[in-house]
């Protein structure tokens, strides 16, 4: 079996078109109240660029490429980790009136609240 991937010409354009359409529709359904976490969350999603950085770095064959590849992974990892951390923090703050009141300033309680919302 052949597991290689060939994304050329129109195949690539179709992938781009469908992805853009999906993004537009999905994000159109996000309520305005969540627009800040949405922006940081979509910011997190393009942190997948770290995977491209890893590919470039692992295939580096000269010092110059190693340095730039290192920077690519460093920045990409920052994008992904930071984007995730802030999004998760913000989303954990949203709760309903019937939720048990929790000390909002203690981030350690964030996980408990995530769990609570998930089980609703």
């Amino acid at each position, binding site marked *: 079996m052949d597991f290689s991937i060939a994304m050329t010409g129109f195949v690539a354009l179709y992938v781009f078109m469908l992805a853009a359409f999906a993004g537009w529709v999905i994000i159109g359904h996000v309520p305005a109240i969540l627009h800040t976490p949405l922006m940081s969350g979509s910011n997190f999603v393009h942190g997948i660029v*770290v995977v491209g950085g890893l590919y470039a770095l692992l295939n580096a064959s000269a010092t110059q490429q190693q340095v730039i590849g*290192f920077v690519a992974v460093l920045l990409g990892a920052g994008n992904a980790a930071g984007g995730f951390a802030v999004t998760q*923090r913000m*989303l954990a703050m949203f709760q309903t009136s019937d939720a048990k009141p929790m000390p909002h300033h203690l981030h350690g309680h964030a996980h408990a609240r995530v769990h609570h919302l998930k089980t609703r």
Partner: protein
Amino acid sequence: MLANLPQLIIGLADLVAAFLFLYGLQRMSSPATAPSGILMAGFGMVAAVLASFLYVFSVDAAAQPHLAVNIGLALIALVAGGGLAWLSGKRVAMTAMPQMVALYNGMGGGAAGAIAAVELFGNKTQGATQLLVTLLGALIGAVSLSGSLIAWAKLEGVIKKPLRVRGQQIVNAAAMLAALAVAGVILFASLGGAPLLLATPTWIYIFFGLALLFGVLMTLPIGGADMPVVISIYNALTGLAVGLEGFVLQNPALMIAGMVVGAAGLLLTLLMAKAMNRSVANVVFTNFGDAPKQVQGAIKGSLRPVEASDAGIAMRYAGKVIIVPGYGLAAAQAQQKLYEFVKLLQAAKVEVKFAVHPVAGRMPGQMDVLLAEAGVPYDMIFQLEDINDDFATTDVALVIGANDVVNPAARTEKSSPIFGMPILNADKAKQVYVVKRGEGKGYAGIQNGLFYGDNCNMVYGDAQAVLVKMIEAVRGLGAAAA
């Protein structure tokens, strides 16, 4: 078959990651499901990153001798970049969220640009199309990096004033055209033409220099209050750059994730510009403060200052209260006090709702996050289109630290710069209390007719101090009654 196994695992992990990104974003359509959504997207990311280490089984022959060093570098970069960003993300104050998002976004753009640089310097692209897409992704990524950093500096207060010079737009256009011309030179040389004047690597350095310069030049003239739109634009651009580099690396997960974010960023940019009553081009190419000030018709009536305690007691005996918070509330860090006051009102059987304008705060939705942080349940927070009809049947509208977003001139005065902007109809409430530091104007620099209305009272002072007085007054009332 066995040689194919790493490729198969990488392919499957990327496929799962792409699905989890889409599904995770889809779960953001409700605050109840959103936390699990980001968690799923996070799992997708971890899976893709771990699987990408399987690339070690298929590296180029030229990279083979460097493999051990490269793996070490990759681990260090992952731990250092990821660790630092994780810690900063866990610590950043909610009010500083816009500049943090700008920073993470710039990192993504820089990563896309750096990947392109490795491909270009290593001469790894094949054919004109790949090279062209690499250059395009590099250009967009580099612009997004330097532009986001300037946006961060402005929001953080490192750069205080918009920097504008005569002929700025001509300089900007020249920088962009020069970058495109250099891209043409690189394309020409790489496709077998004789290198022009300089060696190709030198041209690549010049190309990145010009792209970074353009990002700086483009962002410097834009005012700090317009940064939310700018961040959103750069978010979309980084997504686009990641998608394009995904094509170069033949990685569909990058293509899909990048393009989804590109479209999402574009949609958010348009929504925000609409809420600010301006076109995207107007935000990027002109400056609000520069617009000639229209002569306003004289506003009839006078300002009526009242004591905070009286306003607090009036709300205690109201049936329905709608609170309109603005950035002034966050600037005074009074969200917690506000919710404390709201809980007192609720205990006295007053129906309280929050009305949030789309551009309240320094990025869209930031006021919602700040209220949630203070513990306000999200079912009490209403967006403009859902609550605007309620004002007419509301006893008291309490406006705290907001100004332009409740200015009725947006509905009535054709000559006003904010005419046509969607506003919260606080003026329709039976009674309006406006908490304000002083008699100053809002960001748009125009008078607010709401403040002069017959139904309006001004409570001057720092929001935090005013709320403390309101709380004391209502508590005192409870003690006297009991």
